[in-house]
């Protein structure tokens, strides 16, 4: 089983985000890039499949700050091959990423490609289905369970309200992971440091980043947020009346 996992690095929302002077892009000065949480699940799912069925797991990520740590951590979890795509990925959209990734995926000829179902900075669709389009592979997203059979995969696709659809997907295919079958495992820092000494990250160049297919942004801004609750005062009856009015306004009554 040849499994490839594609990883995006995305802005960490713990840090304050700001718009840069152009007014149409995020200010990257203080931005911390971290692994897309759903891609972390994709890695976990890939490792679980390798542990169950054997095979080779390759993790591919674009060259952004923090990528080495992401790749070595994946190695410490059990990934066999690490590939870093070189290029200027700051500001690259998912169409560009998908095209860059697909060149590498085609070479590796996987049975299965896993990636997170979405990322917090997706504005031009998500990576998984875009990649499936490039590779002409089938795509199913919102996956929370994968098992592998002969030439196909039985997947669990999540719908709202807890409903699950079991979909059979012929391989090779791209799956958009919502949740791995178990939460991403912890890896001790010492193990990652060990990987830094014993594993190598293969570098491959991206042949130009083609962003065609994404929207042009005219304006980017931050919505207003309240700093403190609007306080309701009065006797209990008065407060209750005001709350009922709020419930009505919110459509709950």
């Amino acid at each position, binding site marked *: 089983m040849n499994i490839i996992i594609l990883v995006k690095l995305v802005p960490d929302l713990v840090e304050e985000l700001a718009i840069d002077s152009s007014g149409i892009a995020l200010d990257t000065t203080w931005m911390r890039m971290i692994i897309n949480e759903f891609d972390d699940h994709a890695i976990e799912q890939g490792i679980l499949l390798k542990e169950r069925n054997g095979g080779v797991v390759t993790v591919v990520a674009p060259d952004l700050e923090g990528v080495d740590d992401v790749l070595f951590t994946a190695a410490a979890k059990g990934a066999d091959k690490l590939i870093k795509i070189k290029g200027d990925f700051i500001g690259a959209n998912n169409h560009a990423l998908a095209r860059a990734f697909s060149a590498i995926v085609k070479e590796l000829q996987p049975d299965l490609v896993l990636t997170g179902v979405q990322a917090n900075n997706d504005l031009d669709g998500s990576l998984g289905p875009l990649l499936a389009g490039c590779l002409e592979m089938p795509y199913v997203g919102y996956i929370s369970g994968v098992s592998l059979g002969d030439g196909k995969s039985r997947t669990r696709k999540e719908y709202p309200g807890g409903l699950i659809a079991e979909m059979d997907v012929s391989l090779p295919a791209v799956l958009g992971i919502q949740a791995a079958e178990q939460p991403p495992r912890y890896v*001790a820092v010492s193990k*990652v440091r060990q990987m830094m000494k014993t594993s190598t990250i293969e570098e491959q160049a991206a042949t130009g980043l083609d962003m065609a297919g994404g929207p042009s942004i005219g304006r980017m801004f931050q919505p207003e947020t309240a700093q403190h609750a609007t306080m309701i005062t009065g006797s209990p009856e008065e407060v209750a009346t005001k709350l009922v009015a709020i419930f009505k306004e919110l459509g709950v009554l």
Partner: protein
Amino acid sequence: MTANGAVEHSFYDQVLEATPEGERLRLCLQCGDCSGICPFGYLMVHPPSRMIAHLRADRFDKVLDNDTVWMCVSCYACTAVCPAQIPLTPGLMARTKEELILAGNVPAELQSALENSQRYGNPLGESPRKRADWVTGIVPEVKVLGKVRKEVDVLWFVGDYSSYHPRVQQVTKALARILNALGVDFGILGPEESSDGDSQRLAGERGLFEMLAEKNGLAFGKYEFNEIITTDPHAYNAIKNEYPGLDISYPVRHYTEYLADRIDQLKPLLKKEVKAKVAYHDPCYLGRANGIYEQPRLILQAIPGVELVEMAHNFKNSLCCGGGGGGMWLDGFQWEKAHVRLSEWRVNESLAAGAEILAVACPYETPRFEDAAKTVPGAAQILVRDIAELLDQAMGN
């Protein structure tokens, strides 16, 4: 993830190598004092003495197959009482947790605290850029060394919870006011400060501890100062006892030691009475682990109106609040097994001692004891105050 014979022998050697006086493991009498005094020993399938028995019997795989070692809060009670003076807490317990982490057996809450420490330099997952946000409103302004770039007398290592937790920030501000009132020339690292790493070390993440220590070492190296003081006994323990092994050596004191030294300067400032019976809780890492018992009591007795009362477990026998060794991040896990919190036991003891105020000197304790006081029957009136807050109050703030 069961261990085999090979693991045990190297495990044995690793514990021996990694801990000062680790060879003492060979001297265990199997007296069981450690398991008896351990506050959660009764819940562990393998309390410390039994762990050693398994180790010797070549059956350590049994210990690694079980997760009750996560009940250990690294309170040092076992280490303090062991007649063979085996370094149980930093050696055996921490090393066993390390094995579990390497095998991927980590309770979820602890996992996120460790991952946060790695990514943000604090277990709470807060942005490092906001580490000095607590300083607003303090006059004279607290010097953040990265901005001020001046030599200072004292580098105040503030700590994670002291910097970010809303309740503990009140303690930090109180201490800042005290240092200002005493005219201390101090500075803080602010965003350049990382977690001291001690609790993470005792929770089994040696690699993470070293990474955090290295970062702090680099930050210390950038500035000129004469000594370090800490709000947190855990940071004190780390910088005093563990950092020198990584070639990071600085004179360091806990803030109670520092203030006790200046008691004559401090006393005239304590004008307002704090009339109350005060029980002082000896924090594990100030008291048992580092032998500091008198200085905090000296300071409390200097406050007019304070009547010091002692709880049943005090000095070397103090009862842990439950926060150490990762306990801060194992609350759910430990609750599931114990259905009782060490902090609640302690609050009961303070009530029995007739205390109106439970005085603490560690940032884990203020939120833990306040939470416990809300659920322990009859404890609603008890006030939990850090020594710094009581001094601040006595200064009229």
